[in-house]
């Protein structure tokens, strides 16, 4: 069967089971948009290519399937660089297809030419510049294989216009051998010796902690984690990337560790004698000052990527494995720590003394952002998916929303990409139309990618957006207040400019606003009644509110600052 390269590309995506592409056409990718009309694949036309990338990420994180985005060459391709970098940092499986100028024009500074494979070399797991139409099926099959196996990540396929316009004899790789990836061997044999040494460390431990990272979600190991944790009674912390991997309602869950982690989660790690790291990478936002991080703990480091071992922290035992397989092996070997009653007693005393708190809200406002999140959560249907941008609102959402299952918390961790919230919520809702999707956003983040609400309305994707509008780039403001002597430099945004309600309405969404407690409850109830169009709520929140607990940048986790309400010196 003779097909054009463009037809072969679409057919290859169909072969991979792709049901949706987020994209925006342009000159170099034009040939591929023609056969798309005849395809079963849904295309979601974004308003900016960054939106396509973040939507694909939200889709991937909500479904566990790779997200697919397609854009044109030059600025289309550079506009999707940020989502690619974001997916690379958070190990999110993504396949990004970019148009390229014709092969004969490459290197001539042709119109809308840019070296996107060069630009994305350091922020993709791998990328391809396809040289002939005949090679398209192999590139697509290899891209999906690379994106979804081993440590997942983004893969980019750059396709020159003449390649999609020329003819090929249809074929599709039948097996991995035909992918032509001689240097890629993601299958791992579990090291029995490492498991035995890990078991010995666990059996000796008196103050162990399960330090659960995003790799636990990526390897779908939540069931194994629950079984292992309950059998061993070891306390669990879940990092920002692992929220939802272990139920927040579970008695063994101490919450999120790190710079804005819960006091008990941070302190339990600090005082632990054994840290069992499951798909976590000792990020600086978790460790604080490295020499004083869990200084008396031995480390069992489980990761699928061996380059993570000893990168930041020495691993006493390194187990190269996906988290699920490693936990099954540890369970089979009956790893059981000593009696943890004393350890739990200590932990319970921290929990009692330093729960998450915030100042009581006043009836007339301004609203407390933490209270808004709790109020939305209280009225949310179980299984609601929450996305966030980056900043204070993100930390509060992670702290105050109670996550019970995998794939319900979607945010930008490693890269810290402002504007991630709205498009990732759209992608999540496309992937899981059965779920309610709330985006908890900041006013700064919202302004970066809000135009995708036009996409959401046009495509019938009814997400809900809660803007915690404090009129500031709040996290920067918090740092300037605390560490720059309240010298506020370029952080004021103005709560009334833009008018978020009118903006939402102009994009075909329902726009609501709440300044008082009564209005807050009313608009949340109203938002929950609307299921056909996107809803945007402008919650007017207190600009002076800061995220606590907090470990200052570069400080030791021992020096965690709790909320002023919990300080003996009363501010």
């Amino acid at each position, binding site marked *: 069967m003779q097909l054009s390269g463009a037809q072969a590309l679409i057919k290859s995506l169909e072969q991979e089971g792709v049901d949706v592409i987020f994209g925006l056409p342009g000159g170099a990718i034009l040939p591929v948009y023609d056969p798309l009309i005849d395809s079963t694949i849904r295309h979601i036309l974004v308003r900016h290519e960054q939106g396509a990338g973040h939507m694909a990420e939200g889709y991937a994180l909500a479904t566990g399937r790779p997200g697919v985005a397609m854009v044109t060459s030059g600025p289309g391709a550079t506009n999707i660089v940020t989502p690619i970098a974001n997916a690379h940092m958070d190990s999110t499986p993504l396949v990004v297809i970019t148009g390229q100028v014709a092969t004969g024009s490459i290197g001539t500074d042709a119109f809308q030419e840019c070296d996107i494979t*060069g630009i994305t070399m*350091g922020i993709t797991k791998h990328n391809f*510049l396809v040289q002939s139409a005949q090679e398209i099926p192999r590139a697509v099959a290899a891209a999906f294989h690379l994106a979804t196996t081993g440590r997942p990540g983004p893969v980019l396929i750059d396709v020159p216009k003449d390649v999609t316009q020329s003819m090929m004899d249809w074929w599709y790789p039948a097996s991995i051998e035909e992918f032509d990836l001689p240097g890629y061997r993601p299958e791992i044999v579990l090291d029995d010796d490492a498991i035995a040494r890990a078991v010995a460390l666990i059996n000796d431990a008196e103050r162990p902690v399960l330090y659960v990272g995003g790799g636990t979600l990526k390897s779908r190991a939540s069931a194994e984690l629950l079984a292992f944790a309950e059998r061993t009674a070891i306390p669990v912390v879940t990092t920002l990337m692992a929220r939802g991997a272990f139920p927040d309602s579970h008695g063994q869950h101490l919450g999120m560790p790190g710079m804005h982690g819960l006091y008990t989660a941070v302190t339990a790690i600090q005082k632990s004698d054994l840290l069992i790291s499951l798909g976590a990478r000792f990020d600086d936002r978790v460790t604080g000052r490295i020499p004083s991080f869990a200084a008396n703990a031995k480390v069992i480091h489980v990761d699928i990527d061996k*380059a993570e071992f000893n990168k930041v922290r020495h691993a006493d035992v390194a187990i190269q494995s996906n988290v699920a397989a490693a936990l099954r092996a540890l369970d089979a070997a009956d790893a059981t720590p000593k009696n943890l009653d004393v350890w739990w007693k200590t932990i319970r005393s921290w929990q009692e003394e330093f729960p998450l708190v915030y100042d009581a809200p006043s009836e007339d406002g301004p609203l407390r952002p933490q209270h808004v999140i709790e109020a939305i959560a209280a009225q949310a249907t179980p299984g609601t998916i929450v996305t966030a941008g980056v900043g204070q609102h993100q930390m509060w959402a992670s702290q105050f929303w109670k996550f019970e299952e995998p794939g319900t918390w979607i945010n930008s961790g490693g890269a810290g990409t402002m504007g991630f919230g709205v498009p990732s919520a759209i992608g999540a809702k496309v992937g899981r139309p059965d779920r309610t999707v709330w985006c908890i956003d900041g006013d700064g983040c919202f302004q970066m990618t809000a135009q995708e609400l036009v996409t959401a309305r046009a495509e019938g994707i009814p997400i809900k957006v809660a803007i915690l509008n404090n009129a500031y780039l709040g996290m920067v403001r918090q740092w300037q207040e605390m560490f720059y002597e309240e010298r506020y430099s370029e952080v004021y945004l103005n709560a009334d400019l833009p008018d978020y309600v009118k903006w939402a309405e102009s994009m075909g969404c329902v726009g609501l606003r709440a300044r008082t407690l009564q209005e807050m409850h009313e608009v949340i109830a109203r938002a929950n009644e609307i299921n056909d169009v996107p809803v945007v709520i402008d919650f007017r929140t207190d600009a002076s509110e800061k995220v606590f607990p907090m470990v200052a940048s570069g400080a030791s986790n021992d020096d965690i600052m709790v909320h002023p309400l919990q300080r003996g010196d009363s501010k």
Partner: protein
Amino acid sequence: MSPEPFLGTLSRTPVRHHILSVLVENKAGVLARIAGLFARRGFNIYSLAVAPAERNARFSRVTIVVDAESAPLEQIVGQLDKLVNVVAITDLAPRDALERELLIATVAVNDDNRTALLDTIAGAGASIVDVDAVSVTVMLAGTPFACDELESSLEVYPDVELHRTGRVALPRLGRAANA
């Protein structure tokens, strides 16, 4: 043949260096991927030599001398191994490696220095590969140490153009490399 002496710690070589013999797919951009990885991770390359491997156009051999003080070797190898186009990495400690390098140099000669230069060339075991009325081109294929020695001997001549290839290496017989 008697084994040659160990000459691992050299003035021109980083104090702690390792030789990575890296088999890669012979595809466009692979060298850029390796160089880019070293740059963004802050690993230092001391020398780099690339050529098609084993008469097989499908693969190339990249021999990288890395400064093992710029980053832990485990990190360098681990990150390098993640490049999809990297097929195999052999890590050679200097003590276990048979290292060779090629040096060529064109030196201006006159009646005053000709004899001394010929002595230097002979003493270094180098050979003359080209001559004209005013200059000679010499070549030495030898250990990095021998190349260092010849290079410093030639520094006294006024007009020297000298190129070195960077080294290639194989495990010494009877010594295991870490694959």
